[in-house]
Protein backbone atom coordinates (compact mmCIF):
# COMPACT_ATOMS: atom_id res chain seq x y z
CA UNK A 1 0.00 0.00 0.00
CA UNK A 2 2.53 2.50 1.17
CA UNK A 3 4.72 1.50 -1.74
CA UNK A 4 2.40 3.63 -3.93
CA UNK A 5 4.08 6.99 -4.21
CA UNK A 6 2.45 10.13 -5.58
CA UNK A 7 4.36 9.60 -8.77
CA UNK A 8 3.09 5.99 -9.02
CA UNK A 9 -0.47 7.26 -8.76
CA UNK A 10 0.03 9.85 -11.48
CA UNK A 11 1.94 7.44 -13.70
CA UNK A 12 -0.75 4.79 -13.50
CA UNK A 13 -3.45 7.34 -14.19
CA UNK A 14 -1.52 8.66 -17.19
CA UNK A 15 -1.08 5.12 -18.47
CA UNK A 16 -4.86 4.64 -18.44
CA UNK A 17 -5.45 7.88 -20.31
CA UNK A 18 -4.95 6.30 -23.78
CA UNK A 19 -7.94 4.04 -23.08
CA UNK A 20 -10.14 7.04 -22.40
CA UNK A 21 -8.86 8.66 -25.58
CA UNK A 22 -9.32 5.41 -27.54
CA UNK A 23 -12.89 4.96 -26.34
CA UNK A 24 -13.68 8.63 -27.05
CA UNK A 25 -12.25 8.40 -30.55
CA UNK A 26 -14.10 5.19 -31.42
CA UNK A 27 -17.37 6.49 -30.03
CA UNK A 28 -16.98 9.83 -31.81
CA UNK A 29 -16.03 8.32 -35.16
CA UNK A 30 -18.66 5.59 -34.91
CA UNK A 31 -21.16 8.25 -33.92
CA UNK A 32 -20.24 10.43 -36.89
CA UNK A 33 -20.62 7.60 -39.42
CA UNK A 34 -23.87 6.25 -37.99
CA UNK A 35 -25.17 9.75 -37.27
CA UNK A 36 -24.57 10.82 -40.86
CA UNK A 37 -26.39 7.76 -42.23
CA UNK A 38 -29.32 8.44 -39.92
CA UNK A 39 -29.32 12.12 -40.90
CA UNK A 40 -29.52 11.33 -44.60
CA UNK A 41 -32.23 8.71 -44.10
CA UNK A 42 -34.19 11.16 -41.95
CA UNK A 43 -34.07 13.86 -44.63
CA UNK A 44 -34.77 11.52 -47.54
CA UNK A 45 -37.66 9.71 -45.85
CA UNK A 46 -38.98 12.19 -43.29
CA UNK A 47 -42.27 10.39 -42.74
CA UNK A 48 -41.54 6.68 -42.49
CA UNK A 49 -37.89 6.24 -41.47
CA UNK A 50 -37.70 9.77 -40.11
CA UNK A 51 -40.29 8.95 -37.45
CA UNK A 52 -38.34 5.85 -36.42
CA UNK A 53 -35.14 7.85 -36.18
CA UNK A 54 -36.88 10.44 -34.02
CA UNK A 55 -37.80 7.62 -31.63
CA UNK A 56 -34.24 6.33 -31.73
CA UNK A 57 -33.00 9.80 -30.74
CA UNK A 58 -35.67 10.13 -28.06
CA UNK A 59 -34.68 6.73 -26.64
CA UNK A 60 -31.03 7.69 -26.25
CA UNK A 61 -31.70 11.23 -25.07
CA UNK A 62 -34.44 10.20 -22.67
CA UNK A 63 -32.61 7.45 -20.76
CA UNK A 64 -29.42 7.54 -18.69
CA UNK A 65 -26.23 6.44 -20.45
CA UNK A 66 -25.52 4.34 -17.38
CA UNK A 67 -28.62 2.22 -18.08
CA UNK A 68 -27.77 2.05 -21.78
CA UNK A 69 -24.34 0.67 -20.90
CA UNK A 70 -25.77 -1.97 -18.58
CA UNK A 71 -28.39 -2.97 -21.15
CA UNK A 72 -25.78 -3.30 -23.90
CA UNK A 73 -23.47 -5.28 -21.66
CA UNK A 74 -26.10 -7.71 -20.44
CA UNK A 75 -27.92 -7.65 -23.76
CA UNK A 76 -24.81 -8.92 -25.54
CA UNK A 77 -24.62 -11.74 -23.04
CA UNK A 78 -28.25 -12.53 -23.66
CA UNK A 79 -27.57 -12.71 -27.39
CA UNK A 80 -24.88 -15.28 -26.71
CA UNK A 81 -21.81 -13.07 -27.02
CA UNK A 82 -19.15 -13.23 -24.41
CA UNK A 83 -19.79 -9.86 -22.75
CA UNK A 84 -16.61 -7.84 -22.98
CA UNK A 85 -16.53 -4.34 -21.50
CA UNK A 86 -14.60 -3.11 -24.53
CA UNK A 87 -17.19 -4.28 -27.05
CA UNK A 88 -20.15 -3.15 -24.94
CA UNK A 89 -18.65 0.28 -24.22
CA UNK A 90 -17.62 1.04 -27.81
CA UNK A 91 -20.93 -0.17 -29.23
CA UNK A 92 -23.07 1.64 -26.69
CA UNK A 93 -21.16 4.92 -26.78
CA UNK A 94 -21.19 4.92 -30.59
CA UNK A 95 -24.97 4.50 -30.68
CA UNK A 96 -25.31 7.13 -27.97
CA UNK A 97 -23.08 9.57 -29.86
CA UNK A 98 -24.89 8.90 -33.15
CA UNK A 99 -28.23 9.84 -31.59
CA UNK A 100 -26.94 13.17 -30.27
CA UNK A 101 -24.97 13.98 -33.41
CA UNK A 102 -27.79 13.17 -35.81
CA UNK A 103 -30.23 15.27 -33.79
CA UNK A 104 -27.83 18.22 -33.67
CA UNK A 105 -27.06 18.05 -37.36
CA UNK A 106 -30.72 17.67 -38.23
CA UNK A 107 -31.31 20.90 -36.34
CA UNK A 108 -28.57 22.57 -38.38
CA UNK A 109 -30.04 21.35 -41.67
CA UNK A 110 -33.51 22.49 -40.63
CA UNK A 111 -32.17 25.94 -39.76
CA UNK A 112 -31.11 26.54 -43.36
CA UNK A 113 -33.68 29.04 -44.70
CA UNK A 114 -36.55 27.59 -46.73
CA UNK A 115 -35.58 29.89 -49.59
CA UNK A 116 -32.39 27.89 -50.14
CA UNK A 117 -34.43 24.71 -50.70
CA UNK A 118 -36.88 26.51 -52.95
CA UNK A 119 -34.19 28.25 -54.96
CA UNK A 120 -32.23 25.05 -55.49
CA UNK A 121 -35.27 22.98 -56.43
CA UNK A 122 -36.39 25.67 -58.87
CA UNK A 123 -33.02 25.19 -60.54
CA UNK A 124 -34.13 21.58 -61.16
CA UNK A 125 -31.67 20.06 -58.68
CA UNK A 126 -32.83 16.77 -57.23
CA UNK A 127 -32.79 16.07 -53.50
CA UNK A 128 -29.35 14.45 -53.61
CA UNK A 129 -27.88 17.38 -55.50
CA UNK A 130 -29.63 19.90 -53.28
CA UNK A 131 -28.11 18.32 -50.20
CA UNK A 132 -24.69 17.83 -51.73
CA UNK A 133 -24.21 21.28 -53.24
CA UNK A 134 -26.52 23.67 -51.41
CA UNK A 135 -27.71 22.50 -48.01
CA UNK A 136 -24.85 20.47 -46.51
CA UNK A 137 -22.10 23.01 -47.21
CA UNK A 138 -24.08 25.63 -45.31
CA UNK A 139 -25.18 23.28 -42.55
CA UNK A 140 -21.62 22.01 -42.13
CA UNK A 141 -20.42 25.47 -41.16
CA UNK A 142 -22.95 26.00 -38.41
CA UNK A 143 -22.70 22.40 -37.17
CA UNK A 144 -19.02 22.58 -36.23
CA UNK A 145 -19.28 24.37 -32.85
CA UNK A 146 -22.08 22.13 -31.45
CA UNK A 147 -20.24 19.04 -32.75
CA UNK A 148 -17.14 20.07 -30.84
CA UNK A 149 -19.39 20.55 -27.81
CA UNK A 150 -20.67 16.99 -28.24
CA UNK A 151 -17.11 15.69 -28.46
CA UNK A 152 -16.51 17.13 -24.98
CA UNK A 153 -19.71 15.42 -23.77
CA UNK A 154 -18.50 12.12 -25.21
CA UNK A 155 -15.06 12.37 -23.61
CA UNK A 156 -16.70 13.02 -20.24
CA UNK A 157 -19.25 10.26 -20.75
CA UNK A 158 -16.62 7.60 -21.43
CA UNK A 159 -16.07 7.77 -17.67
CA UNK A 160 -19.31 5.82 -17.23
CA UNK A 161 -17.80 2.85 -19.06
CA UNK A 162 -15.91 2.27 -15.81
CA UNK A 163 -19.16 1.01 -14.34
CA UNK A 164 -19.26 -2.04 -16.63
CA UNK A 165 -15.59 -2.71 -15.90
CA UNK A 166 -13.84 -0.97 -18.77
CA UNK A 167 -10.48 0.06 -17.37
CA UNK A 168 -9.99 3.67 -18.43
CA UNK A 169 -9.13 6.77 -16.40
CA UNK A 170 -12.07 6.69 -13.97
CA UNK A 171 -11.85 2.93 -13.34
CA UNK A 172 -8.10 3.21 -12.79
CA UNK A 173 -8.77 5.98 -10.29
CA UNK A 174 -11.18 3.70 -8.44
CA UNK A 175 -8.68 0.83 -8.40
CA UNK A 176 -5.87 3.05 -7.14
CA UNK A 177 -8.14 4.52 -4.46
CA UNK A 178 -8.88 1.03 -3.21
CA UNK A 179 -5.15 0.57 -2.69
CA UNK A 180 -4.00 3.98 -1.46
CA UNK A 181 -7.12 5.08 0.46
CA UNK A 182 -6.56 8.63 -0.71
CA UNK A 183 -9.66 9.45 -2.78
CA UNK A 184 -9.18 13.20 -2.32
CA UNK A 185 -5.87 13.21 -4.15
CA UNK A 186 -6.69 10.49 -6.67
CA UNK A 187 -10.10 11.77 -7.77
CA UNK A 188 -8.78 15.32 -7.69
CA UNK A 189 -6.01 14.32 -10.06
CA UNK A 190 -8.41 12.37 -12.28
CA UNK A 191 -10.68 15.43 -12.44
CA UNK A 192 -7.77 17.64 -13.47
CA UNK A 193 -6.79 15.16 -16.17
CA UNK A 194 -10.30 15.19 -17.63
CA UNK A 195 -10.24 18.95 -17.39
CA UNK A 196 -6.95 19.13 -19.28
CA UNK A 197 -8.50 16.91 -21.95
CA UNK A 198 -11.85 18.69 -22.30
CA UNK A 199 -11.11 22.34 -21.63
CA UNK A 200 -9.09 22.97 -24.82
CA UNK A 201 -11.93 21.52 -26.88
CA UNK A 202 -14.47 23.65 -25.02
CA UNK A 203 -12.42 26.76 -25.68
CA UNK A 204 -11.99 25.83 -29.31
CA UNK A 205 -15.72 25.26 -29.70
CA UNK A 206 -16.43 28.64 -28.17
CA UNK A 207 -13.94 30.38 -30.45
CA UNK A 208 -15.57 28.75 -33.47
CA UNK A 209 -18.98 29.83 -32.25
CA UNK A 210 -17.84 33.41 -31.88
CA UNK A 211 -16.20 33.36 -35.28
CA UNK A 212 -19.37 32.08 -36.80
CA UNK A 213 -21.49 34.70 -35.05
CA UNK A 214 -19.27 37.45 -36.42
CA UNK A 215 -19.24 36.00 -39.92
CA UNK A 216 -22.99 35.63 -39.97
Amino acid at each position, binding site marked *: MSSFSTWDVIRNLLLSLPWTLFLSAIAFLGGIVLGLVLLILRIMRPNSLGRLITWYVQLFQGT*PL*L*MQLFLTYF*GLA*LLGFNPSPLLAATLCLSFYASAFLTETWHGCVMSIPKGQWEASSSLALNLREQLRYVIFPQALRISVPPTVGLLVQIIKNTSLASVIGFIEL*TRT*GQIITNVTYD*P*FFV*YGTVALMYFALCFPFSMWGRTLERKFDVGH
Partner: protein
Amino acid sequence: MKVLDFSDVITAWPLFISGFFMTCFLTLASCLLGTLLGTLCAWVRLQGPSLLKLIVAAYVELFRNTPFIIQIFFIFFGLASAGFKMGAIVASLVALTLNLGAYACEIVRAGIQATPKGQVEAAQSLALNRWQIFTRVMVAPGLARVWPALVSQLVIMMLATSVCSQISAEEISYSANFVAGKTFRSFESFMVVTACYLVIAIFFRKLLLWVGPRFIFGRMKF
Protein backbone atom coordinates in the same frame (compact mmCIF):
# COMPACT_ATOMS: atom_id res chain seq x y z
CA MET B 1 -35.08 -20.94 -18.41
CA LYS B 2 -36.75 -18.44 -20.71
CA VAL B 3 -34.63 -15.84 -22.52
CA LEU B 4 -36.56 -12.95 -21.02
CA ASP B 5 -38.29 -13.49 -17.71
CA PHE B 6 -39.73 -10.51 -15.89
CA SER B 7 -41.48 -12.38 -13.07
CA ASP B 8 -38.67 -12.04 -10.50
CA VAL B 9 -38.17 -8.44 -11.40
CA ILE B 10 -41.86 -7.64 -11.10
CA THR B 11 -42.08 -9.22 -7.65
CA ALA B 12 -39.47 -6.72 -6.50
CA TRP B 13 -41.77 -3.77 -7.34
CA PRO B 14 -41.67 -2.15 -3.87
CA LEU B 15 -37.93 -1.59 -4.33
CA PHE B 16 -38.50 0.12 -7.64
CA ILE B 17 -41.23 2.30 -6.20
CA SER B 18 -39.05 3.55 -3.35
CA GLY B 19 -36.20 4.07 -5.80
CA PHE B 20 -38.56 6.01 -8.05
CA PHE B 21 -39.50 8.38 -5.24
CA MET B 22 -35.86 8.92 -4.35
CA THR B 23 -35.09 9.72 -7.99
CA CYS B 24 -37.96 12.23 -8.03
CA PHE B 25 -36.76 13.79 -4.79
CA LEU B 26 -33.15 14.11 -5.97
CA THR B 27 -34.30 15.54 -9.29
CA LEU B 28 -36.70 18.14 -7.92
CA ALA B 29 -34.45 19.26 -5.07
CA SER B 30 -31.36 19.61 -7.23
CA CYS B 31 -33.30 21.31 -10.03
CA LEU B 32 -34.52 24.00 -7.63
CA LEU B 33 -31.19 24.46 -5.86
CA GLY B 34 -29.13 24.21 -9.04
CA THR B 35 -31.22 26.73 -10.97
CA LEU B 36 -31.02 29.10 -8.02
CA LEU B 37 -27.25 28.65 -7.80
CA GLY B 38 -26.93 29.06 -11.56
CA THR B 39 -28.93 32.29 -11.49
CA LEU B 40 -26.82 33.69 -8.65
CA CYS B 41 -23.67 32.76 -10.56
CA ALA B 42 -25.11 34.42 -13.65
CA TRP B 43 -25.55 37.59 -11.59
CA VAL B 44 -21.94 37.39 -10.41
CA ARG B 45 -20.65 36.90 -13.94
CA LEU B 46 -22.68 39.85 -15.20
CA GLN B 47 -22.53 42.36 -12.36
CA GLY B 48 -20.57 40.91 -9.47
CA PRO B 49 -17.26 42.04 -8.00
CA SER B 50 -14.30 41.03 -10.16
CA LEU B 51 -12.68 38.59 -7.71
CA LEU B 52 -15.97 36.72 -7.34
CA LYS B 53 -16.36 36.77 -11.12
CA LEU B 54 -13.06 34.95 -11.45
CA ILE B 55 -13.99 32.35 -8.84
CA VAL B 56 -17.34 31.66 -10.48
CA ALA B 57 -15.75 31.43 -13.92
CA ALA B 58 -13.28 28.85 -12.58
CA TYR B 59 -16.09 26.89 -10.91
CA VAL B 60 -18.20 26.87 -14.07
CA GLU B 61 -15.34 25.72 -16.30
CA LEU B 62 -14.20 23.08 -13.84
CA PHE B 63 -17.64 21.51 -13.53
CA ARG B 64 -18.47 21.74 -17.23
CA ASN B 65 -15.22 20.05 -18.24
CA THR B 66 -15.13 17.08 -15.86
CA PRO B 67 -17.37 14.00 -15.73
CA PHE B 68 -20.21 14.01 -13.23
CA ILE B 69 -19.15 10.63 -11.85
CA ILE B 70 -15.76 12.04 -10.87
CA GLN B 71 -17.44 15.06 -9.30
CA ILE B 72 -19.68 12.88 -7.17
CA PHE B 73 -16.78 10.53 -6.23
CA PHE B 74 -14.69 13.50 -5.22
CA ILE B 75 -17.48 14.98 -3.13
CA PHE B 76 -18.53 11.71 -1.48
CA PHE B 77 -15.22 9.84 -1.08
CA GLY B 78 -12.65 12.60 -1.48
CA LEU B 79 -14.18 15.18 0.83
CA ALA B 80 -14.95 12.48 3.42
CA SER B 81 -11.27 11.56 3.54
CA ALA B 82 -10.50 15.26 3.97
CA GLY B 83 -12.88 15.44 6.93
CA PHE B 84 -16.18 16.54 5.34
CA LYS B 85 -18.32 13.44 5.83
CA MET B 86 -21.69 13.42 4.09
CA GLY B 87 -24.36 10.77 3.63
CA ALA B 88 -24.91 9.43 0.11
CA ILE B 89 -28.10 11.46 -0.33
CA VAL B 90 -26.57 14.73 0.83
CA ALA B 91 -23.46 14.14 -1.29
CA SER B 92 -25.70 13.38 -4.28
CA LEU B 93 -27.65 16.61 -3.75
CA VAL B 94 -24.46 18.64 -3.41
CA ALA B 95 -22.92 17.11 -6.54
CA LEU B 96 -26.10 17.45 -8.61
CA THR B 97 -26.64 21.04 -7.49
CA LEU B 98 -23.07 22.09 -8.21
CA ASN B 99 -23.14 20.35 -11.59
CA LEU B 100 -26.44 21.90 -12.66
CA GLY B 101 -25.41 25.28 -11.24
CA ALA B 102 -22.44 25.42 -13.60
CA TYR B 103 -24.53 24.65 -16.69
CA ALA B 104 -27.49 26.77 -15.62
CA CYS B 105 -25.15 29.72 -15.01
CA GLU B 106 -24.19 29.87 -18.68
CA ILE B 107 -27.75 29.30 -19.93
CA VAL B 108 -29.33 31.88 -17.62
CA ARG B 109 -26.55 34.37 -18.32
CA ALA B 110 -27.27 34.18 -22.03
CA GLY B 111 -30.96 34.81 -21.35
CA ILE B 112 -30.32 37.75 -19.07
CA GLN B 113 -27.74 39.28 -21.39
CA ALA B 114 -30.45 39.47 -24.04
CA THR B 115 -32.52 41.87 -21.91
CA PRO B 116 -33.41 44.87 -24.09
CA LYS B 117 -31.61 48.02 -22.97
CA GLY B 118 -34.90 49.88 -22.66
CA GLN B 119 -36.09 47.52 -19.92
CA VAL B 120 -33.10 48.39 -17.77
CA GLU B 121 -33.41 52.09 -18.52
CA ALA B 122 -37.08 52.09 -17.58
CA ALA B 123 -36.23 50.40 -14.28
CA GLN B 124 -33.38 52.85 -13.65
CA SER B 125 -35.73 55.74 -14.31
CA LEU B 126 -38.01 54.35 -11.61
CA ALA B 127 -35.10 54.59 -9.13
CA LEU B 128 -34.67 50.83 -8.70
CA ASN B 129 -31.19 49.79 -7.62
CA ARG B 130 -29.03 47.28 -9.50
CA TRP B 131 -30.06 44.26 -7.45
CA GLN B 132 -33.75 45.17 -7.72
CA ILE B 133 -33.41 45.61 -11.46
CA PHE B 134 -31.72 42.22 -11.74
CA THR B 135 -34.19 40.26 -9.62
CA ARG B 136 -37.42 42.04 -10.57
CA VAL B 137 -36.90 43.10 -14.16
CA MET B 138 -34.22 40.89 -15.71
CA VAL B 139 -34.49 37.41 -14.21
CA ALA B 140 -38.01 36.31 -15.13
CA PRO B 141 -37.92 37.41 -18.80
CA GLY B 142 -34.33 36.13 -18.99
CA LEU B 143 -35.41 32.70 -17.77
CA ALA B 144 -38.35 32.77 -20.15
CA ARG B 145 -36.03 33.47 -23.07
CA VAL B 146 -33.87 30.40 -22.40
CA TRP B 147 -36.52 28.18 -20.85
CA PRO B 148 -36.39 25.46 -23.55
CA ALA B 149 -32.58 25.21 -23.18
CA LEU B 150 -32.86 25.18 -19.42
CA VAL B 151 -35.54 22.46 -19.54
CA SER B 152 -33.21 20.30 -21.66
CA GLN B 153 -30.51 20.76 -19.05
CA LEU B 154 -32.92 19.87 -16.24
CA VAL B 155 -33.86 16.65 -18.07
CA ILE B 156 -30.15 15.83 -18.47
CA MET B 157 -29.82 16.45 -14.74
CA MET B 158 -32.69 14.06 -14.02
CA LEU B 159 -30.95 11.36 -16.08
CA ALA B 160 -27.66 12.08 -14.30
CA THR B 161 -29.25 11.16 -10.95
CA SER B 162 -28.73 7.54 -12.06
CA VAL B 163 -25.01 8.01 -11.41
CA CYS B 164 -25.83 8.58 -7.73
CA SER B 165 -26.37 4.80 -7.51
CA GLN B 166 -22.58 4.50 -7.75
CA ILE B 167 -22.22 6.02 -4.27
CA SER B 168 -25.18 3.85 -3.16
CA ALA B 169 -27.80 6.58 -3.00
CA GLU B 170 -30.89 4.42 -3.14
CA GLU B 171 -32.59 5.82 -6.20
CA ILE B 172 -34.11 3.79 -9.00
CA SER B 173 -30.82 2.76 -10.70
CA TYR B 174 -29.65 1.47 -7.36
CA SER B 175 -32.86 -0.57 -7.17
CA ALA B 176 -32.07 -1.95 -10.62
CA ASN B 177 -28.54 -2.90 -9.58
CA PHE B 178 -29.82 -4.46 -6.40
CA VAL B 179 -32.54 -6.51 -8.08
CA ALA B 180 -30.14 -7.51 -10.87
CA GLY B 181 -27.66 -8.82 -8.32
CA LYS B 182 -30.32 -10.70 -6.35
CA THR B 183 -32.33 -12.31 -9.15
CA PHE B 184 -29.59 -12.65 -11.80
CA ARG B 185 -32.12 -11.11 -14.18
CA SER B 186 -29.89 -8.14 -14.97
CA PHE B 187 -31.16 -7.31 -18.43
CA GLU B 188 -34.81 -7.44 -17.41
CA SER B 189 -34.17 -5.35 -14.33
CA PHE B 190 -32.29 -2.64 -16.21
CA MET B 191 -34.87 -2.72 -18.98
CA VAL B 192 -37.71 -2.00 -16.58
CA VAL B 193 -35.81 0.88 -15.00
CA THR B 194 -34.71 2.28 -18.36
CA ALA B 195 -38.35 2.35 -19.42
CA CYS B 196 -39.16 4.19 -16.19
CA TYR B 197 -36.52 6.82 -16.98
CA LEU B 198 -37.90 7.26 -20.49
CA VAL B 199 -41.39 7.86 -19.13
CA ILE B 200 -40.10 10.23 -16.44
CA ALA B 201 -38.01 12.15 -19.00
CA ILE B 202 -40.92 12.62 -21.38
CA PHE B 203 -43.30 13.57 -18.59
CA PHE B 204 -40.79 15.83 -16.82
CA ARG B 205 -40.01 17.75 -20.01
CA LYS B 206 -43.71 18.23 -20.80
CA LEU B 207 -44.39 19.31 -17.23
CA LEU B 208 -41.59 21.88 -17.17
CA LEU B 209 -42.54 23.34 -20.53
CA TRP B 210 -46.11 23.63 -19.29
CA VAL B 211 -45.30 24.96 -15.84
CA GLY B 212 -42.75 27.58 -16.91
CA PRO B 213 -44.93 30.06 -18.75
CA ARG B 214 -47.86 29.54 -16.38
CA PHE B 215 -46.30 29.78 -12.95
CA ILE B 216 -42.76 31.05 -13.31
CA PHE B 217 -42.93 34.02 -15.64
CA GLY B 218 -46.61 34.89 -15.50
CA ARG B 219 -48.55 35.27 -18.70
CA MET B 220 -45.78 36.97 -20.62
CA LYS B 221 -45.33 36.32 -24.30
CA PHE B 222 -42.22 34.46 -25.44
